[in-house]
């Protein structure tokens, strides 16, 4: 069997798709089965978690971003009401079906009421999975925010130490921060390539690569990305007459990959997005000081990317969104939020006004993990594209 590094680009994308569509998490089962691997797997619910600390503890940090379209929600509906987002129900379903067996621990953070309560539901339902809950600062403008979050991260570090039964050194955390800085840098290069040459790699392909990063060692994924760039340079492509689009609202629950493909088919070059934002949480490297935990807290408070679930001090959400519209030279915005995702849907009200002020047309729709027909949506997007390309004043 070919291993990831040996694969050609198209094979790799097909492999990523297979992983995404298999809810039994085969890469994690394979990781657990590796000879001599006793490393625990520490999962987190989106959007963000301090994966560097889990990595420094010798664990494999992964993101469990729902069950997608391939898992029937059966058991979970008996525990969670139907008017919450798909990702919370399908993530619970994965656990109830035993698909999360390779996971030793799960981290939840304070992104919304649903995620907060899901942490409690996990604790009650899965005694074999150690559950951690992290209170991220809601008011990062407060002078106490860094001190507060450093304290919270230290609490998490101690909990991880208890979990693995060993200490986690500052040096190990600093090394792990370096590993994640490298990975974020490679992902940033991937997004730069898409922004500058959207015909070289589609948003669907880039998304599949991004999703795969969260189910494998980050060092391996960085190497894969770096080797991919050389291949993409040589890829024969044809630039079509499409509009440049920014996608906003898909930072937590992920749209089906077919939905992304439908938007691209309909005539969009998706030049930027907020798909699975956690692995791209900082747009600059985390600057290491003497205390790596404090450095991580400072990074979170000072230069996390703006999003609906991280509130702002000196980087107001609206200003940053306006900057994104300009920097990406977009012709249109598609607000693509998960059904029942309150953070994304509340932000829509703010952000659509910013798009209006910038004179950028926008389209909005809601998705669910299990939507299976994309024809109507594609027609909507095509109409949007035509209105911009052919009839805009």
């Amino acid at each position: 069997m070919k291993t990831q590094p040996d694969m050609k680009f198209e094979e790799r994308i097909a492999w990523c798709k297979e992983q995404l569509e298999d809810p039994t998490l085969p890469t994690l089962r394979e990781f657990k089965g590796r000879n001599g691997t006793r490393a625990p797997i520490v999962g987190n619910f989106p959007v963000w978690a301090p994966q560097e600390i889990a990595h420094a503890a010798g664990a494999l940090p992964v993101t469990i971003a729902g069950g997608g379209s391939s898992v029937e929600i059966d058991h979970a509906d008996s525990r969670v009401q139907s008017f919450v987002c798909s990702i919370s129900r399908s993530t619970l379903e994965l656990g109830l079906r035993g698909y999360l067996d390779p996971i030793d621990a799960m981290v939840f953070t304070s992104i919304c009421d649903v995620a907060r309560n899901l942490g409690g539901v996990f604790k009650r339902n899965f005694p074999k999975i150690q559950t951690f809950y992290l209170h991220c600062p809601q008011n990062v403008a407060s002078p106490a925010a860094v001190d507060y979050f450093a304290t919270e991260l230290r609490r998490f570090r101690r909990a991880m130490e208890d979990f693995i039964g060993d200490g986690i050194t500052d040096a190990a955390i600093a090394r792990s921060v370096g590993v994640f800085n490298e990975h974020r840098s490679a992902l940033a290069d991937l997004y730069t390539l898409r922004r500058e040459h959207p015909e070289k790699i589609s948003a669907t392909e880039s998304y599949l690569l991004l999703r795969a990063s969260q189910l494998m060692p980050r060092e391996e994924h960085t190497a894969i990305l770096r080797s991919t760039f050389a291949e993409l340079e040589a890829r024969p492509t044809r630039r079509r007459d499409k509009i440049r689009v920014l996608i906003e609202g898909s930072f937590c629950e992920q749209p089906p990959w077919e939905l992304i493909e439908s938007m691209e088919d309909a005539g969009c070059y998706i030049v930027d997005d907020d798909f699975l934002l956690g692995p791209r949480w900082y747009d600059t490297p985390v600057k290491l000081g003497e205390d790596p935990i404090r450095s991580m807290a400072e990074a979170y408070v000072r230069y996390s990317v703006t999003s609906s679930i991280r509130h702002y001090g000196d980087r107001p959400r609206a200003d940053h969104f306006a900057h994104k519209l300009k920097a990406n030279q977009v012709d249109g915005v598609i607000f693509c939020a998960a059904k029942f995702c309150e953070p994304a849907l509340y932000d829509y009200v703010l952000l659509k006004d910013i798009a209006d002020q910038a004179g950028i047309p926008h389209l909005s729709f809601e998705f669910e993990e299990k939507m299976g027909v994309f024809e109507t949506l594609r027609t909507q997007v095509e109409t949007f594209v035509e209105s911009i390309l052919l009839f805009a004043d």
Partner: protein
Amino acid sequence: MKVIAGVDVGSQTTKAVISDETGKIIGRAQVATKIDLGGAAEKAVAEACRNAGIERSALAYVAATGYGRFQVEFRDLQITEMTCHAYGAHSVFPKTRSVLDIGAQNSRAMGVEANGRVRKFRMNDKCAAGAGRFMERVAKALEVELDQIGALSLKATDPTPISSICAVLAESEVINQVTEGKKVEDIICGAHYSITDRIIALLRQVGGEEEITLTGGVTKNMGMVKTLEDRLAKKVNVGPDAEFMGAIGAALLGLRRLQRVSAAAA
């Protein structure tokens, strides 16, 4: 001189036209679509280029429409059928405010603004009912050539509408009418009325304002045009290029886009 191709990959036939930079159609071609949609598009465009007397490599822009538009690898842009048929109809009959496109697989009604832009549209939502394929099934059941059904329909004296909206069930209903001794022309005309009633329902949903222009392959069927005019109690526009209207719309929208891009670059 810049030349633009518009290609309409329909379920039955693929049509291509070539437009010069003034919007004049200088070449056209039509081929059977078959299974290779991209191949049909290439063949139609190549033939349209020959018909226009230009080299294939001279094309500055290719706009694709029709249900197979995504299979046209050499396209610069794909455009929905609604937009293309509306714009094509507007270019030939500038006072058009409603367009009925009756193709092999789908029927659509579009309300059109004064500049040719689609204001509202509706499509048939039940399999091939209300579309050309329905008439094919009827013709086949009656052992009549498709190109004869229009002329036969005009001879009808006692048309009997078909009640089923499903093309397959309609075939059974036609056989029942044959066993009851109904005349072939009356059955065909009745089938036309059945389709017409459904299409007019679509038209009403988009406003149904005048002028009404008919596009798509079914426009070749004069029996169909007559039943439509009877039911509407008014004349509809049917141009000699009605079947090519999607491809014409695509080519002219391609030209419009090319002019915008050139103006932005200048």
